[in-house]
């Protein structure tokens, strides 16, 4: 979706607060929102693409007007209800109507779960459509669903820098439509190919893009 989350190239967002000592959390509630999001995710009811879409898929005024962990919290609220972990009524009242039959992981296992992670890299033997050095054009795909092509590189021509291997495809994975294994590449764009001739000639922008987003450059 073309949402407010797709920020590359937007003007008017103001200066950067570069304070190196700015704390990671600014209130007790944002720590809790962070931890709730991870802990509820342990149930495996959604994947990282589902959860990204739950955060980005909201009115742009809501997205831009919310703090970072506020967006996480609204996302996990939505996911909890959509996957049935919590009913809408339970969320509204705060009163549990039923106890979960699937217990959460033992707290002692949390460190191991985090250290293991969940790679999106796949072993599937899928041929790569492009090789390093090939010129590619990013397709002009517009979808109301989840996608990881920033608007600023759509329709633009870049060069395959490296092939990362076969990865889960987020556009399908976010919507329960499978992993659609395919190669993901780092694609190099000249700054001038994205922003025009006023950009420095030696700015380069690397974007990770999947086979389904690309065609051979005309």
């Amino acid at each position: 979706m073309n949402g407010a989350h797709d920020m590359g190239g937007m003007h008017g967002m103001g200066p950067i607060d570069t304070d190196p000592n700015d704390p990671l959390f600014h209130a007790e509630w944002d720590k809790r929102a962070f931890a709730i999001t991870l802990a509820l995710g342990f149930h495996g009811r959604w994947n990282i693409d589902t959860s990204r879409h739950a955060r980005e898929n909201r009115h742009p005024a809501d997205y831009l007007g919310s703090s970072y962990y506020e967006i996480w919290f609204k996302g996990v609220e939505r996911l909890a209800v959509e996957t049935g972990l919590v009913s809408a009524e339970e969320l509204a009242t705060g009163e549990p109507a039923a106890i979960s039959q699937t217990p959460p992981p033992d707290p002692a296992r949390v460190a191991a779960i985090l250290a293991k992670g969940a790679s999106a890299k796949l072993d599937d033997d899928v041929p790569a459509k492009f090789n390093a050095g090939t010129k590619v054009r990013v397709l002009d795909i517009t979808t109301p669903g989840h996608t990881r092509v920033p608007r600023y590189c759509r329709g633009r021509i870049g060069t395959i820098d490296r092939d990362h291997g076969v990865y889960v495809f987020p556009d399908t994975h976010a919507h329960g439509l499978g992993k659609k294994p395919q190669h993901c590449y780092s694609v190099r764009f000249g700054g001038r190919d994205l922003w025009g001739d006023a950009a420095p000639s030696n700015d380069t922008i690397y974007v990770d893009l999947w086979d389904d987003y690309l065609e051979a450059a005309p």
Partner: protein
Amino acid sequence: MGGHDHSHGHNHSHGHGHPHAAPASPLAERVKSLEALLVAKKLVDPDSLNALIDTYEHKVGPRNGAKVVARAWSDPAYKERLLRDATTAIAEFGFTGRQGEDMVVVENTPAIHNMVVCTLCSCYPWPVLGLPPVWYKSAPYRSRAVMDPRGVLREFGTVLGDEVEVRVWDSTAELRYLVLPERPAGTEGFSEEQLAELVTRDSMIGVTRAKTPESVP
């Protein structure tokens, strides 16, 4: 909750460059209420919540990445492994897992300056850097890093010559990027521990250089 969330009443001042303003009280109440509900439903264990917070507040952070960088500065063979297969080389330290499953390290040189952004959300290499700073997740950084990287770098006090190539890595997939900063001059004979002291979080995101020995007391 399907479709769009049109909730009103949240504190919009968060969006105006003050993301660390005091939270709207109703939101804090909503978080507390959901946590209580999830605990009562036995969907989350409070000890797990505390363990998660403790992990990223106290255990996993940029000192991990600094160790990786210091070794790469000290050991040419390690640096070669790190640039060739970052995931495996970083795992030699035990820094693995969530939001760092597949790593790429890019090297700064006198001719090339790398910096990392996630324009679409906030992707960041947790096992080596911990959770991202507020500015990394903020609209000003995400919007401008790809369009005006030299202007962004100046805002961090990093001024590059026009002849230096700037490479911006937009983390749109599940690869996580770590910048290997240039080793500062005057550090000949430094131990890995001494070198690690010069490696800041921001230098591994690529918005600043590593510290010079003179700047460290």
